[in-house]
């Protein structure tokens, strides 16, 4: 069944055992995002250290897709220089807009690593917002953090 194309094992793993969950101090920027169609929410904090993403901490409620996506986000961007983290975020958006095109996923594999597992979600328009919720919060919070430290924001 098609279902496994959305719920790949790696997504279910992150959902059952999310990485980096919880809100932590200190942080340079925080963002709260709501998905108006289902009411799901996330609060996400970003801590920069000289333009390197030192921590991403988050809390909220949402479906397996949004939870797993936030967990993978944490894995991908923590430790990265902010410009590179933003590239990753842009690539993830591209993946979500690819309508599930395997070729797009393949071309992004180097950048997104495990996160290409989300390619199947792109075929379900109602779920794309779920996958993007944390990433929208990251874009917002990282901008704030950059501005706060007087960086490249």
């Amino acid at each position, binding site marked *: 069944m098609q*279902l496994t194309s959305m719920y790949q094992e790696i997504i*279910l793993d992150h959902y059952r055992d999310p990485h980096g969950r919880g809100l932590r101090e200190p942080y340079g920027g925080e963002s709260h995002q709501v998905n108006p169609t289902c*009411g*799901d929410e996330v609060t996400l904090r970003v801590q920069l250290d000289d333009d390197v993403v030192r921590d991403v901490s988050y809390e909220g409620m949402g*479906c397996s897709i949004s939870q797993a996506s936030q967990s993978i986000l944490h894995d991908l961007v923590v430790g990265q220089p902010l410009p590179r983290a933003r590239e990753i975020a842009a690539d993830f958006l591209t993946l979500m807009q690819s309508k599930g095109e395997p070729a797009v996923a393949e071309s992004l594999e180097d950048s997104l690593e495990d996160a290409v597992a989300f390619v199947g979600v792109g075929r379900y328009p109602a779920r794309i917002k779920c996958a993007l919720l944390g990433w929208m919060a990251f874009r917002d919070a990282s901008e704030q953090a950059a501005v706060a430290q007087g960086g490249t924001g």
Partner: protein
Amino acid sequence: MTGIVSGYDVEVLRKDFPILERRLADDHPLVYLDSANTSQKPRQVLDRLREHYEQHNANVARAVHQLGEEATAAFEGARDTLAAFVKAPSRDEIIFTRGVTEGLNLVANVLAWAEPPYRVGPGDEVLVTEMEHHSNIVPWQLLTQRTGATLRWIGLTDEGRLDLSNLDELITERTKVVSLVHVSNMLGTLNPVADIARRAHEVGALVVLDAAQAVPQLPYDVTATGADIVGFTGHKMLGPTGIGVLWGRRDLLAALPPFHGGGEMIEDVRMERSTYAGPPHRFEAGTPPIAQAIGLAAAADYLTAVGMDNVAAHEQAITAYALERLQAVPGIRILGPTTVEDRGGAISFTYGTLHPHDIGQVLDSLGIAVRGGHHCAKPVHRRFGIGASTRASAYLYTTTAEIDALAGGLEQVRRFFGVRF
């Protein structure tokens, strides 16, 4: 069919609904349990729509030609049909709107500009409840914010019923409007509207009912509700999208100012000033949803032919069956009344820690359509400490086999995510 007895043959009736024969992905037959969101349409409604467009299409009330007369007769005839369907004392009390959302906005809007005693202004209060659909909250927020009035609301008990313990504090001399849902689209609760209307009328408040879920399911008598205004929506009662009805007492409607301005709602127009037609036309500016009103009349005819008593009895029986089946599934918690007394057909529930999106997605892969989300009722979700729920809702074409499919599907959901409750 097993398990329940209906006043009509559900399997025969289902043949009127072409979409129910649809096969979905992986060749699953459609199990449509999202009727509180929108209902499916019988062939009889679609045929009437097509016949109108192919044979009689013209604008109404404006043309002296055969098509125009036919279209006008059909459109105004639809008003008669809908008046009879909800036992309105007069056809002139039936206003066609896009849906109940527009109807409620119409009321909230004209009350800002009405003459006393109806005008809502500074110091006045509007009372709603915590179980309202957003369509019966936001219009009143806009009204009260813009006029300096105050919005108050009736809270809920843990069983999902209105908490009427402090009603005397909530309904006071300051209360100008009490607007509430007749049957909740989320909890399923059927509210004691006649009692509340009596209390509201004691202080001279207007009573407005959101009957979006009630009119499709119950034999309806607008005056028996005790309300002054009742709104409902066509697409939830086998009718087309884009059409709804607002019923209002004739003398009240006659005292209210217009809503939108434009063609058909006028008596005379000069550049300096206009005068307006009487109800219902005063509230129907512009070309109305002609074909949609005619289609809605066909839907009302269909429901009347089945018999609204039979529709209500089937809804009760299938809801009772579903409540029982669902409560037998480990991990299911029903939000709202768990038995069928004073209850409509929508059943919202949580399922362990699983998210409604995930539940809905797996059910969908089996052809089972339910709704997952806040169902346009965020405050009541918040009241129960959750953000979203899963909702199954039946209608006159729903079978017990479909309820069984849902119960079975939920077991598969659990297995798919590898959880136990």
